C-alpha cells in the first residue's frame, strides 16, 4: 500500500471504531434499558421516518445560526475598530460587552418572546448574543497586537489614523478575527438550537431543531432525539469547515500558521 493512502487511513479507521463502539455500547446495556441508547439500525430508521421533518428543521436552524453568526461577525468587526481606537473607549465599553455575554439566555428568552415574539428573529438575536463576545474580544486583541516596528514605519510614513487602522491594524488582526470566527462557528449552531428550544416558532413547518427535539422528548421518541443531536453536530461541522476554508483563503499565502513545514507535518 502506498504511504499516501496509509496516511489518509487513520480518520477512517477511527470512524469505523467509533461506529463499532456505538453499537457495542447499545448491546452492552441490559435489554430493558437499550431503548435509552438506540442501535445504529434504529437510528437509521429514525432518519428514514423523520428525515423530511428533520431536514426542514435543520434548514431553519441553519439559517438562524448563519444569520446570528454573520450579524455578530459584522457588528464585532465594527465594534472592534471602535474599541481599538482609544483606551478610554475600551475601558468604558468593556463592562457592557461582558455584561452582554453574562446575561443568561434563560432570562433573555421570556423577554424576547414578549418584545419580538417567538420565531426566527428571536432565535437570531440569541445566537448573536452567544457568538458576539468571542468575536469582539479576539478581533480587538488583534487590532491592538501590532508590532511596534510597523507602527513606527507608519508613523514615519505620516499615516493618518484611518490609514493605520485600515492598512495596518485590520490586516494584522485578520488571524485573530478568524480565531474568533472559529469559536463563534462552534457556538452558533448550539446557540441557535438552544434558542429555538426557548424562543423558536412552534407553528407547523417553521420550527427548528430545538422545537423538534422538544417534541421528540414529549413523545418519548428516543431515536428521534439522537437523530436531532446528530443533525445539530453536522450543522456545526459544516459551519466550522466553511470558516476554516475562508481562513485558508485569507491567510494561507502569508500567515505562519499555514507555513509549509506545518502542512508537511
Amino acid at each position, binding site marked *: 500500500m502506498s504511504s499516501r493512502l496509509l496516511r489518509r487511513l487513520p480518520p477512517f479507521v477511527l470512524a469505523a471504531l467509533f461506529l463499532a463502539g456505538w453499537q457495542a455500547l447499545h448491546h452492552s446495556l441490559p435489554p430493558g434499558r437499550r431503548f435509552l441508547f438506540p442501535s445504529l439500525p434504529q437510528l437509521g430508521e429514525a432518519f428514514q421516518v423523520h428525515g423530511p421533518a428533520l431536514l426542514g428543521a435543520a434548514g431553519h436552524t441553519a439559517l438562524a445560526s448563519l444569520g446570528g453568526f454573520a450579524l455578530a461577525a459584522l457588528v464585532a468587526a465594527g465594534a472592534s475598530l471602535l474599541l481599538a481606537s482609544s483606551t478610554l473607549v475600551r475601558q468604558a465599553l468593556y463592562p457592557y460587552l461582558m455584561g452582554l455575554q453574562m446575561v443568561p439566555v434563560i432570562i433573555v428568552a421570556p423577554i424576547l418572546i414578549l418584545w419580538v415574539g417567538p420565531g426566527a428573529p428571536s432565535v437570531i438575536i440569541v445566537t448573536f448574543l452567544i457568538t458576539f463576545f468571542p468575536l469582539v474580544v479576539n478581533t480587538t486583541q488583534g487590532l491592538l497586537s501590532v*508590532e511596534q*516596528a*510597523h507602527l*513606527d*514605519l*507608519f*508613523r*514615519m*510614513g*505620516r*499615516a493618518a489614523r484611518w*490609514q493605520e487602522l485600515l*492598512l*495596518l491594524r485590520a*490586516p*494584522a488582526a*485578520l488571524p485573530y478575527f478568524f480565531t474568533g470566527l472559529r469559536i463563534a462557528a462552534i457556538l452558533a449552531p448550539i446557540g441557535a438550537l438552544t434558542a429555538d428550544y426557548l424562543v423558536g416558532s412552534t407553528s407547523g413547518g417553521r420550527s427548528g431543531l430545538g422545537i423538534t427535539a422538544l417534541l421528540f422528548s414529549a413523545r418519548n421518541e428516543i431515536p428521534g432525539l439522537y437523530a436531532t443531536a446528530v443533525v445539530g453536530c453536522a450543522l456545526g461541522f459544516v459551519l466550522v469547515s466553511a470558516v476554516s476554508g475562508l481562513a485558508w483563503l485569507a491567510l494561507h*499565502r*502569508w*500567515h*505562519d500558521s499555514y*507555513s509549509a513545514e506545518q502542512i508537511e507535518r
Partner: protein
Amino acid sequence: MTPPPLIHCQALAKRFDTTGPAVLGPLSLTVAPGEFVSILGPSGCGKSTLLRLVSGLLAPSEGTLRVADRPPGELDDLAYVFQDATLLPWLRVAANVETLLRLRRVSTAERTRRRDAALGLVRLTEKARAYPRQLSGGQRMRVSLARALALEPRVLLLDEPFGALDEMTRDHLGEELLAIHARQAWTALFVTHSVAEAVFLSTRILVLAPHPGRIAHDLAVDLPYPRNHETRRAPDYLRLVADVSARLRAVEPAEDFAA
C-alpha cells in the same frame, strides 16, 4: 562655497526621564547634502536615539534640530531603514515597496514607476510577486531598502540595516548600497557596529562616546571612489579600519563589561 547643511543640530539633547540624566547630548552636528555618515559607538550610547530624533519619531528634550531647514518629522523625503526588514507579511514584495507611497497618496502610475525603479536598484525585480516569508533574510532587507528608496529620499536613515546578516551578504549589500548612492543624491546617516563596513561605505565617521551619548571623534574618510572589493585590501583602507577600531575601543566603557 559650501552648500547649506541638510541636517543641523545645535546642543541637541534627549532625556527619557525628565528628571534623570540626558541619554544623548548636548551634541552639535552639521551634515551637508550627499554625505554618507556612519555612526559607531558602544551599545546603548544613543545611536538609535539620534536617528529617531532626526526622523521626528522622538522629540528633542533640548537644543535645536533642523532637517532641510525644517523641524524633523515635517519632511516628506526622509526614509528610515530599520534593523529588521519590517515588511508587512500580508503584502507581496511589490505592494510592500509601495506602502509608503500609498500612504502619501502618490498616483498609481507614479507609484508603479518608482516601485519598479527601486526593485531594479536592489536587483529584486523578479521577486515582485513573492510574499516576504518566501524571501531570504538578505532579500527581505533589500526589499526594505527598496521601500525606502522608492520615496526618492533626500535623507536616508539606516539603523544597523545589515546587522542580522552574514558577512558575505553584508559586504554585497554594502557594495550595492554604495552603487545606488553614486547614482542618487541622498544623504545617509548609517548606524553600524562594524568598523570595516563604516570605513568602506562612508565619507565621514562619527564615533560616539556613552553616558551621555556625544561625538568623541568626527573623522573624514577620503578613500577614492569607486570602492569595491579591491578597496578592502588597500593599505589606506586597512590603516583607517585599525585607526577607527582603536578609537572605538578607547570610548568603550570597560566597566560595563567587567561585571
